């Protein structure tokens, strides 16, 4: 069953003097239980796409259905509720509250769901246990290693039991060994029927995902098994495919 349905998604940033297209015409469907990498160079539009999939932003045109509900034209507060209920974020820079303990950090999304303090505590403990940090609950972020911090962030994303785990360069700030561990954790979570979308610029990371989507200049130019999409002569493939797609688009517009 489709969790994410993107149809003709366009996002244009209005910079006053000029309009910059970030996403041109994105079609994408992701089913429940999938583990998908979105790869692309910086400027390819992958961050914009992540923001839209994560309901942090709305498209300029097109339709986005999440769990069957059209979320492309929701208000700020409605989007906040959708994020709270449906999406767990994992960021490159962890985004933990420095003064709060691991436990308090993990509790945070439950605060906005109106869960009582006692229940929050119990659920946060469960989530930290799941990522292997049961013995670090009272530590502040500064007292944890990079890998442990990212585990706290993953626990925070999981604590609400979201439909979608959305990770933005989750290994970007980690050394390769720690990065491996985190990727391993994601594979673990995928094994537990979580839907994961991982945004990255590293083909190596994408290659390990069952499915990868390559973005160039705001267009999807490849979509298939991670190994193929990531390991093909990426850049050459990219340039050729973009030219083809743009021509096809121009033809549609003329017609």
């Amino acid at each position, binding site marked *: 069953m489709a969790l994410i349905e993107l149809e003709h998604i366009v996002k244009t940033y209005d910079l006053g003097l000029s309009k910059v297209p970030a996403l041109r015409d994105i079609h994408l469907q992701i089913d429940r239980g999938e583990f998908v990498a979105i790869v692309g160079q910086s400027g390819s539009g992958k961050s914009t796409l992540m*923001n839209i999939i*994560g309901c*942090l*932003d709305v498209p300029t045109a097109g339709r986005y259905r999440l769990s069957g509900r059209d979320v492309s034209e929701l208000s*700020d*507060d409605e989007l*906040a*509720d959708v*994020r*709270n*209920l449906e999406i767990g*974020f994992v*960021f490159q820079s962890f*985004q933990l*509250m420095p*003064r709060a303990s691991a436990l308090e950090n993990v509790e*945070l*999304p439950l*605060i*906005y*769901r*109106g*869960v*009582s*303090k006692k229940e929050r505590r119990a659920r946060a403990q469960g989530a930290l246990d799941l990522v292997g940090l049961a013995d670090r609950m009272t530590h502040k972020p500064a007292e944890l290693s990079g890998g442990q911090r990212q585990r706290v962030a993953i626990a*925070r994303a999981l604590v*609400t039991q979201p439909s979608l785990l959305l990770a933005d360069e989750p290994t970007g700030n980690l050394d390769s060994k720690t990065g491996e561990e985190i990727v391993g954790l994601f594979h673990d979570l995928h094994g537990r029927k979580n839907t994961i979308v991982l945004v990255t610029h590293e083909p190596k990371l994408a290659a390990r995902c069952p499915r990868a989507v390559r973005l160039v200049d705001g267009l999807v130019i490849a979509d298939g098994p991670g190994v193929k999409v990531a390991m093909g002569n990426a850049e050459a493939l990219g340039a050729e495919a973009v030219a083809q797609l743009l021509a096809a688009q121009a033809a549609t517009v003329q017609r």
Partner: protein
Amino acid sequence: MSEIAAQASGVRLRASAWSERARRVAIARLDDLRLAFASLSGHKLRSGLTLLGIVIGVFTVVSMMSLLHGLQNSIDKNMGGLGADVFQIQKFPNFNFGALSPEILRRKNLTVTQALQLRDLLPQAKQVGAEVWEFGKEISAGKQIDQGGAVAGGTAEFFTNNNLPIGSGRGFSEAEAMSASRICVLGAGAVDVLFPNGDAIGQRVRLGRLELEVVGSVERLGGGPLGGGNPDNLIAIPITLFLELYGTGRSVNITVMAKKHDEMQKLQDLAIGAFRRARGLAATADNDFEMFSNDSARATFDQLAGTVTAASLFICALSLLVGGIGVMNIMLVAVAERTREIGLRKALGARRTRILMQFVIEAVLLACFGGIIGVLLGFAGTAVAHFLTFPAEVPAWAIALGLGVSCGIGLLAGIYPAARASRLDPAVALRDE
């Protein structure tokens, strides 16, 4: 299910939805408060400095109001029972800030003779009397003892000039007052204690070394303990007898009653001239006595109190304005510093109002702390004033005003920065460096 049952369950459902909502709001505000505490205590020095303006403002208004309130109370007490148409001439001023000047301390006593002279020089007055007081004396009748009574030595005018109506028996005659007759008039309280089961008139009481005949008693006045002692616990004796008993080296107060209330001011002006003659003052010399009436005391005080109140409210408003700007500034800094945190909170599902409330509550809490510190300092200032024997008392409304206004300032100063925070775009805020 019958229709009624369905309706009933609908009502229950709505009620429980409502209480669920209330529960969520309560949890939310409690979390906001916790958060505000944490973030303020993370910046103790900064928060403290921000508060200074509000602290000074609230301290000013609380301590000034407590001084004025205390003064007002002490005036009300000291005015005692002086009749409405009566003014008093006395040696020293009733109210004074700080120590009396040497010129005032060198003044000669007012005497009974001067009072009698004034009576002749001021025919416009209805009557002129003289009186002198002692407090905390013991009066006895047989085995009955009355402690702590006030002893007044007076002329025949004493009772009318002090608004002390004779209840039974009589007062003094002029002749008795001037010839140290061994008679007395008792207040109702003294009668209660000394003669619990019978009429006092014609009985004998002992005051110091003298035995006196009771010729009359004053009507019961009542009045609580706040009125400055029990006005009923009184023994009045002829002024000449008083001076014989307690010594002549003391200044008497001269009380003058006007024929009509309208004439009070005119009569006081005349009395000054007449009394200067009675005192034998040179034309260039300053008055070496004080005039005092309920009206004049109150008017002088009210004028002073009005000025001081206006001045302190102005200082208070100014410091609160500065304090409010400080709070707004620090909240803007906090929003800028915590842009990423705000982005994160929004990403995790915080609605606009949650972010708004978080920062508004933080600002109100900050300002409220300032108010509380200001009130506490106001109490400390009042304690110091007490230590310096200045009558001061913090009025409840000043506390309420101080706290209320500072919370209001926090609210006003917090809204704009909080609104800015709540409108941040989460995607942009998360990228903030």
